[in-house]
């Protein structure tokens, strides 16, 4: 007990053990969905190798001095941007998105590395020498750091990852203590854009609300007009973006609105995922007994739709266990964000929390049919080396923060 207590003091098992639990669930699900698959049957062994290697990387990250991450931040961000540009030029196109480097038999996704780079860079920038987050210039730079990779990733195009980057950026700015007006400036274009999807009337109503809010904040005319113009152009910009979107992306948005309209087309996955999870019932059909999984109704199930395997074979119980493991991790990260010793550590923790949570919410959301199918992996469970590595590095960093929470420099 004594040893355990000491261990818990330096190493948060309440984060590490749920992560291991999720990885085991992931391995089981990958095994189940690929064991009878003609072309993907090697994926389980590959993932086992990834897991072992990522655990090694995790311990390395955990052991590094905490201050080194601050030093890495700019370099890592720079490298990320370089790779993101490079992948657009020489990357491999997978499922209509140019987001991969092929290195030998393995692929590498620079957008995964960019997640880490952006979190570190934003945290570093926002905490550098008592920066004023309510200064429009500082907000602008923070937004620039956060949205530059978004633009590059959108060009791949990878909608899901872009959205995750936006969420991370906004939540880090929010956590840094942005004023209500600042938050309004950051968020309102997004809200207006959303309204523009819903139709002309919603768009007009949203713009009127923006005007009303501007009166409420009683800012000077120049600022008010600037913000209004940003909002107006955001609405039209989205319409433009929608039209230049690739057909498969347009279809994805359309199929989100009515997945049953084209059951064998874009909405197919969304519908089949629901059928698989729904048919699992309370107790599930049992390991390797999920017919929808075994009969391969969902293509590439071991990546974005791994949660269906859990839902079908382990039922409601299994699904809840997985969600609960995630919840434990998130709550522990929350707690850590309150106890971390400096603001950089706090922001990194929040960044990691936001990243994992948005992946979690959007992935499970699309598996159960409440969010669009935007192609995001489920952390620790989905098959894939890059994601697994980066996630474990991030867990390494937050546990490093946990280890150092009581140390004072």
């Amino acid at each position: 007990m004594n040893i355990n207590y000491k261990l818990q003091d330096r190493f948060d098992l309440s984060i590490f053990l749920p992560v291991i639990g999720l990885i085991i669930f992931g391995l089981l699900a990958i095994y189940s969905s690929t064991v009878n698959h003609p072309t993907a049957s090697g994926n389980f062994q590959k993932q086992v190798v990834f897991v072992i290697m990522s655990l090694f990387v995790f311990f390395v990250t955990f052991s590094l001095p905490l201050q080194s991450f601050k030093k890495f931040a700019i370099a890592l961000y720079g490298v990320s941007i370089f790779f993101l540009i490079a992948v657009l030029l020489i990357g491999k196109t997978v499922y209509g998105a140019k987001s991969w480097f092929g290195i030998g038999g393995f692929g590498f996704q620079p957008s995964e590395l960019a997640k880490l780079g952006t979190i570190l860079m934003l945290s570093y920038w926002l905490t550098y020498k008592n920066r004023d987050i309510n200064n429009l210039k500082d907000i602008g730079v923070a937004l620039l750091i956060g949205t530059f990779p978004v633009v590059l990733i959108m060009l791949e195009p990878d909608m899901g990852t872009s959205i995750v980057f936006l969420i991370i950026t906004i939540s880090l700015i929010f956590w840094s203590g942005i004023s209500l007006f600042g938050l309004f400036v950051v968020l309102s274009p997004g809200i207006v854009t959303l309204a523009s999807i819903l139709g002309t009337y919603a768009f007009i109503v949203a713009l009127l609300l923006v005007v009303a809010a501007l009166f409420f904040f009683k800012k000077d005319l120049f600022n008010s007009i600037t913000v209004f113009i940003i909002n107006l152009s955001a609405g039209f910009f989205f319409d433009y973006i929608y039209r230049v979107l690739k057909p498969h992306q347009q279809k994805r948005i359309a199929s989100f609105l009515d997945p049953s309209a084209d059951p064998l087309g874009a909405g197919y996955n969304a519908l089949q995922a629901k059928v698989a999870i729904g048919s699992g019932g309370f107790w599930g059909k049992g390991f390797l007994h999920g017919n929808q999984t075994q009969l391969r109704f969902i293509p590439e199930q071991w990546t974005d739709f791994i949660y269906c395997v859990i839902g079908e074979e382990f039922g409601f119980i299994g699904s809840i266990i997985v969600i609960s493991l995630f919840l434990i991790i998130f709550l522990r990260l929350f707690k850590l964000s309150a106890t971390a010793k400096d603001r950089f550590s706090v922001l990194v923790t929040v960044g990691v929390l936001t990243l994992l949570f948005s992946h979690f919410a959007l992935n499970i959301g699309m598996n159960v049919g409440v969010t669009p199918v935007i192609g995001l992996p489920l952390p620790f469970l989905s098959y894939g080396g890059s994601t697994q590595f980066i996630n474990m590095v991030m867990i390494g960093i937050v546990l490093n923060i946990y280890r150092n929470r009581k140390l004072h420099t």
Partner: protein
Amino acid sequence: MISSRALILAASLLLIFVALVAKLFSIQVAKHEYYSLVAERQQNKPLTVKAERGLIKDANGEVLSFTSDNISFFADTRMMNSKRIDSISSALSRVFNKPKEYYKKIIDDGVGNVCLEKKVSMEKALELKKNVIEGLYQQEDFSRIYPYGSLASHVLGFVNRDMIGVEGIEKNYQEKLAGSDGYFNFERDVLGRIVSVDENLSRAAVPGNQIILTINKTYQKILEEELANGMQKFGGESAVGIIMNPNTGEIYSLANSPDFDPANYEYSTAESRRDRAITDTYEPGSTMKSITLSILLDQNLVNEDEVIDVENGKYFIKNTPILDSHPNNQLTVRGVLEQSSNVGMAKLSARVADDVLYKYLRDFGFSNSTQIELPSEAAGSLKKPSAFSGLTKPFLSFGYEIALTPLQLITAYCALINGGTLVQPYIVKKITDNTGKNLEETQPRKIRTVISKSTSDRIKNLMVGVVENGTGTAARLQNVLVGGKTGTAQRLVNNSYSSSQHNSSFIGFFPADNPKIVCLILINSPKVGEYGGLVAAPVFRDVAKRMIETDLSLVPNKKNIERKQNLIDRLVADIKTAPKIKTTSFADVADKHVSNISTRKFFNGNNSSMPNLINQSVRDAIAQLNELGLKCKISGTGKVVWQSLEPGSSIIPGSECIIKCEPSIKKNPASVN
């Protein structure tokens, strides 16, 4: 500041968490059954295996209708690309000798699955099976084959494209013949590939039952051929023939002309598909007289040898004339039937009470459908006694004011000659499963006794007289004694009786002493001749003759019937040594009869010289020539205008006399023979 923001984030995090759990609960627990069903449907697409339709056989096991296994080819247009379309089209065009473009067009224009070739024979299908092309599918497709073409087409009926019976036995026994389709429950993956077969949820197809009819294919063939011959000879509009066993009610054959090919029913007219034997009602005319007379006999209201004044062929009831086509002064009751006198029957019918007559007629089955196992049977109609007018009874007595189907009439005749019992007519002998195991067998069913045995025997004797001496002489057979009754009824055309359109009918039975066969022939609107005795009776004779020749067991003890002319020849040859000839129990009946006919003399003194036939009716001419042992050839109808053997010339028995006839100018409005 930080803590309140942390609270907001934590709250939204928990909110999203709760939302996801709620959604999970909704699809995994609340709607679990729905999604299970969807999943099961996706995984298990059952493949139906069509059951083979049962055979229809005749009484001797000859297959009249069977199902052949064919293959149809389909293409899934969703799986097509130009290369596949090309290979499929060229493969099909090679096997079926149709241009490639023909198939290309079908595939290009089609949506989903399109049929490229329907019902291809097995050999051709095997040829095509060698080419495995993705997107080309085959499916077993059955077609119904009627090996004897139009034979018994009205009995068998036909099936539509979906193998569902539309007419005849095919319709009435649809369920029994169809069997039940089987299915394989396959587990399939998303591409429709079969993963496994769930044997618990699979069922083999159960082939349909076999229907064995009472129909005798040989009789049927004879009947149809002779009906067709009759139609050709006399130029009828349509014709019906029924052969039955009078004792059991089995229908040996049932034929209509025109007929149709059940396999290609879509090319036939509704007219030709009509089973007139059971769907069409008509006024029978004189064939009804035997029924009326049997009622009178059964009620002891008449005696065969009673002499009736037939008023020289014209008699008025309530100012309505009743006419005989062959006027006589006096006839015995026997003569009334043999000469088919309307006046005589009308007078006799007055003796029976309205309700008694009505009850007998209902007992004979009129105005009730016979419940034959064929669709669309008509019930016919008969006035209730309360609705009788003063003319109803006399007209009923010779077959008017009543509508009946040919089947009803022959069924009534069964009762008339089988000892007086109405039997249930039936056409399905038994039903077996596909291996031949008996499932149900129809037993002959007696419905009720209509007339007494002795009445039946008496009316049988009288009907033998009709054939031997009366209007039905054309139905006589050389070696078996036949009984029967002719009938000619004017047809109702546009609500008035037509003078040119007749139903010519004959119902005969043999052997007369113990009838095994009763046969009805009805020819509608013959163009040559009109009388049943001239049109329908010869058809009956030809049918009966061929039946006896073909089926040796029908009349095992054939004996040459020595009729009057033979007798006279012998008398002439050797009067003193002439033995007492009594060929049949009916010979003396004939003797008596001759003496009773006072108004007619077939023997003009010198028996061995040719009589003058000019201006006589065909019937009389034939009767005289028959009496003299001459074969005759007739051309035309009406009255004789020319004869090949000069009057008075000496006769060589067995030689031939040709007579030419022309229609008489005047026709009676209500003449009935």
